[in-house]
């Protein structure tokens, strides 16, 4: 499928549009990275801003279900590791906001859009983390699913986003290790611990199966992003890669995957599964999930509570620079 770009949106003649698009697509085909000062179709810019913005929102909102459990972590090791992990996720948001800024988006506006409910975030963070073992499942399987997506995107065509993702993936590898180690420890624990873990998996499995987005036959955003080398695999391909990587490990640990239709197709090596409920997915990412409202409200409250601090900082910066007080200790 060939995508034409809109002359009006790009403020160019039809001929100029076609000429530039050909060069642009030629560069992408050669594997060149697109850099902020390069010409790019407005459509590419808009789609990327949308994509990076949703990704940044997801990192920020993703900090909430896990962050909630930092005060309750049951050992020094877990407490410090979980704190470091959630800190990383906030750092990812910061990196992604910067990548989006190179395309002309503003951080302040992106945060406003998140807390007014205008922009979206990943479906999985619309669900609550009710018990400690949820934190293990999240760090292992959701970070695992995210790595599949982000590794693929890190080879994408837009330079700043691809570089941010490389760094993010490097840190995500630690999250995955931390998650897997927790799951393994709990799976080898007492009956109560194993039941808690299974309960977590039962609740998180359906949202995790939706994580990579609607099935290819219904996904509307995919084609343009694929054509311009932002997205190198389809949603279903990513889901399949995730299943191949994680299902055998889950079964090894004695976990029961709550899908009666899940089985391996020996010929293709693919996992067959019950098609996720895409109506639920749509409802959830549009703010109709179990804790969608809470997530947005929490971010909004934090933003508003911090307003006086940001105002004081800009006031202080506008007055002459305040010298650092003399350090006597």
């Amino acid at each position: 499928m060939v995508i034409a770009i809109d002359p009006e949106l790009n403020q160019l003649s039809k001929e100029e549009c076609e000429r530039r698009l050909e060069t642009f697509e030629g560069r992408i085909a050669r594997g060149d990275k697109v850099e902020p000062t390069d010409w790019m179709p407005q459509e590419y810019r808009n789609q990327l801003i949308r994509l990076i913005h949703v990704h940044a929102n997801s990192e920020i909102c993703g900090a909430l279900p896990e962050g909630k459990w930092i005060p309750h972590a049951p050992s020094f090791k877990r407490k410090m590791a979980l704190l470091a992990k959630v800190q990383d996720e906030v750092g990812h948001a910061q990196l992604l906001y910067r990548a989006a800024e190179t395309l002309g988006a503003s951080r302040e506006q992106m945060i406003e859009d998140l807390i007014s409910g205008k922009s979206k975030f990943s479906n999985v963070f619309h669900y609550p983390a009710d018990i400690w073992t949820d934190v293990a499942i999240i760090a292992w399987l959701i970070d695992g699913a995210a790595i599949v997506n982000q590794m693929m995107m890190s080879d994408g065509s837009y330079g700043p986003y691809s570089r941010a993702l490389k760094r993010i993936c490097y840190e995500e590898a630690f999250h995955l290790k931390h998650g897997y180690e927790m799951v393994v420890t709990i799976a080898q624990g007492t009956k109560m611990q194993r039941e808690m873990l299974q309960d977590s998996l039962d609740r998180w499995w359906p949202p995790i199966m939706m994580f990579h987005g609607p099935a290819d036959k219904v996904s509307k955003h995919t084609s343009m992003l694929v054509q311009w080398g932002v997205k190198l695999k389809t949603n279903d391909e990513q889901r399949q890669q995730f299943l191949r990587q994680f299902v055998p490990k889950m079964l090894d640990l004695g976990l029961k995957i709550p899908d009666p239709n899940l089985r391996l197709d020996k010929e293709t090596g693919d996992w067959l599964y019950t098609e996720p409920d895409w109506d639920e997915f749509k409802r959830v990412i549009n703010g109709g999930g179990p804790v969608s409202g809470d997530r947005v409200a929490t971010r909004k409250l934090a933003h508003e509570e911090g307003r006086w601090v940001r105002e004081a900082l800009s006031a202080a910066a506008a007055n002459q620079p305040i010298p650092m007080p003399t350090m006597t200790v």
Partner: protein
Amino acid sequence: MIATMETLNDLDAPTKSAVIDLLYRLADDAIIIGHRGSEWTGFAPILEEDIAFSSMAQDDMGHALTFYQMLHELGEPDPDTNVFGRKLEQWKCASLVSLCSKRDWAKSLVRKYFYDVAESLRLESLAQGSLVPLAQLARKLSSEKKYHLMHGHMWMPRLGQGTDESHQLMQDAVDTLYPHALGMFESTGADDLLDQAGIFLREDELRKRWVAAVDKVLGESSLKINAKASPVYGGRSGKHPDDLATLLDGMQLVYKLDPSAKW
């Protein structure tokens, strides 16, 4: 001339229990302030501060852990049992570090700053002290503390002088927390022994140094202190505000499901 003690085994019984008392105060203050700091992860006024508070909280928890490990070497319970299994009245932290359950940026900053100045002075004193393992540890930890102090020194004048609103909120925080900060220097039965053994300065001496350092920075930040404020004591002998009780209930929640379980 004070003799140096190369290992923890060189401590005689009374000095050993004074060191244990001191280590509990250091460790308990550090884990609780770290816990409070970690409450900002995901909620700070700017993303940069989410990250700064999280990393300082990790340092503070890390410091606590090394103190608890030393306590374990001295025959006390292992760090996890100590932190996640200990009862409220067995804690020895000052009220300052546990106060203010509600998210309040001004109080959190001031609380952290007051603590960091005290902690730096304590580490400095330990680093020059006669108990070698503790002196070595203190030197290592104080290099990390420098960043914490810089962070406080960056924020105090910016918020103290930023806007009328920020000035007022910071002044309220100082008014509320200053008496509790003085309470960090509550003297205990260990003071004389530690001083005589050359391990650690007396609390009243540390307090003098702390007041001088803090007064100067607050003055440069347009914040006033109440010179007549009297210290809030009790933490060092196990009398704590409700904030600590609530904090411990939360912190020990999962651990207490089954203290023998590994998570």
